[in-house]
């Protein structure tokens, strides 16, 4: 697939993948392609950061390589590890024979055959015709040490494995990092990246997104659901529902055969929009019937 040349082309291509990017996001994604710089996406949960990477992979035709970060992630999980079971078996087999050249065995055992490639190595060592899209998801969950390691990787796109040598990316992968901002990332890491903050979408766009993502949704239901969630977002809640929640919820409503919002069904399905008990209580206290009525007016 040809890489989109202009911002408009990219917007259209993303739309074909059912990802509706606004002008800002499309501009930034397009720049990250042309400038070959990693893109750091921040935003509340459920605004489509991860989806952006998936859509970009689909659009460029590159493979999506995903590294989910978590606390304690280290090189063995992210870059490479040795296949120890195979190594042991190999050594035992050699031992069983008689020709034992320790140096040779050592050389073999720490060779590419015994290397377990993890996402980062995969993204650097790829031989794909189109560069893959490397998604480093929720980088804020990893720790300082890992961030420092990534920093090095993102500056030169090369890694050194002591036993094998230095591996350099022939064509740089497209890199998208996402963060929920549970902590502030190091400035040094940010300096390597383009930065974009994704907020909650405007009502019209959210309706469009719901319609693109939930096949067969009645137009009216999409509009009312998006408006309802929009009203929730200005309430004082512990966790604001994102677009992902709007989509989930609309899917649930469609599965229940709803054509439009109805207080009873909204009450029964509130759990797919709000994930905190107090939030659900608070919304019920505020008067579901009224909220539904307000959403239906829009």
């Amino acid at each position, binding site marked *: 697939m040809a890489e989109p040349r202009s*911002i408009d082309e990219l917007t259209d291509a993303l739309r074909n993948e059912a990802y509706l990017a606004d*002008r*800002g996001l499309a*501009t*930034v994604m*397009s*720049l990250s392609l*042309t*400038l070959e*710089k990693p*893109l*750091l996406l*921040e935003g509340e949960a459920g605004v489509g950061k991860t989806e952006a990477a998936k859509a970009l992979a689909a659009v460029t035709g590159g493979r999506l390589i995903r590294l989910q970060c*978590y*606390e*304690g992630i*280290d090189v*063995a999980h992210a870059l490479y*590890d*040795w296949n*120890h079971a195979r*190594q*042991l078996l190999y*050594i*035992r087999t*050699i*031992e069983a024979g008689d020709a034992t050249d*320790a140096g040779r065995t*050592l050389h073999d055992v720490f060779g590419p055959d015994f290397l377990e490639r993890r996402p980062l190595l995969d993204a650097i060592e790829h031989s794909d015709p189109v560069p893959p899209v490397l998604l480093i998801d929720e980088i804020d969950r990893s*720790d*300082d*040490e890992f961030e420092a390691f990534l920093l090095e990787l993102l500056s030169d796109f090369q890694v050194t494995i002591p036993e094998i040598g230095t591996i350099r990316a022939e064509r740089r992968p497209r890199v998208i990092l996402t963060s*929920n*901002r*549970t*902590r*502030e990332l190091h*400035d040094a890491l*940010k*300096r390597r*990246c*383009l*930065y*974009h*903050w994704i907020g909650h979408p405007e009502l019209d766009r959210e309706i469009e997104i719901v319609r693109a993502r939930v096949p067969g949704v009645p137009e009216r239901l999409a509009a009312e659901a998006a408006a309802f969630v929009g009203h929730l977002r200005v309430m*004082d809640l*512990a*966790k*604001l529902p994102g677009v992902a929640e709007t989509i989930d919820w609309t899917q649930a409503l469609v599965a229940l055969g709803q054509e439009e919002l109805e207080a009873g069904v909204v009450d029964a399905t509130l759990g797919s929009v709000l994930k905190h008990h*107090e939030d659900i209580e608070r919304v019920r206290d505020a008067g579901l019937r009224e909220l539904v009525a307000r959403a239906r007016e829009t």
Partner: protein
Amino acid sequence: MPTATAGDAVVRKLVTFGRILREAGLEVGPGRLQDALRGLDQIDLTSREEVYHALRCTLVSRRDDIDAFDMAFAVFWERAPSTAPDQPIDLGFQASTEPPKRVPSAAPAKDDDRPSEDESPPVLVASSRDEVIRRKDFADMTAAELRRVRRLIATLPSAEPMRRSHRLRPGRAGDVLDMRRTLQAAMHTEGMPLRLAYRKRKLVPRKLVFLCDVSGSMEPYARAMIMFLEAAARAGRHVEAFAFGTRLSRLTPQLRDLDPVRSLRLAGATMPDWGGGTRIGESLRAYNEEYGRRGLTRGAVAVVVSDGWERGDLRLLDTELGRLHRQAHRLVWVNPLKGHTGFEPLAGGMRVALHHSDVFVEGHNLAALEALAEVLTAL
């Protein structure tokens, strides 16, 4: 280089714009400007939106800077009259209230050549004079005494609650078999893994979130507390500090400022509330919404420093403190008045606070702060 098409005028303009952003507190180095220039080269310069985003994604790297950027962009690139001419760009530390004059840290620079006794290992009770000052209520101290306290606080062992990380490090015995090292050892024993190597969980500092009341009734204690926070914030990136009275402000960046005198003055100036009334519930709500929602409290030790004199709604305090408590690993409440003889937690807010706190300690003198550091470390 792309500059050829971008044109000299654009370059000049961009450099000036970068300078304005730097003054507004953004970190804009030459590398970023170069990226911005390359970005401008790729887009349609007549599209306001594309120009805006090309500049924003290259020059801004944190959410909190977006507002300042927007203002600068509007003024500079669109020549829009600044909406608030008297406050062009909020630099974060130009609060309108006059800076506190009695901030003890505004001590003369000669403080730096400390008496040699301070260089000796941190034997806290160095002299009987120190002992007196340790027990003296902060409220009764003179400015000179507060200055001494500041030096003493710097010698306090840092408060560092620890937690087990998921990160592993090599150890002789431990939680997880370390195959890599086991195998390396096996090379020496003809491939027989005779000696097993392990990896064990590392201990890392737990997040510490301080929420310090700086309203009128707390004033004498808040100053000492800020000194304590200042020492704590230096310990590392795991410490976050906030001050509140009628509203909340984040202190962490000011406290980390390398020049201690300046840091305290800035911290004082960032808090427009210094010495005003208290709305604990509302301030906690502001914290929960802005920071708690992002997960700052999760797994952290939360420390609220306040006398519990709530001027606002007690029910709101109850809700928000409950929220804080549920998210935090432990909630510690520090009330300087607790150290006073005959203290009964009668203030309405204090009763709510007791209900949600895991630990309730005093904070009226140096000895109490020492104890606080110990309590925190043990959590």
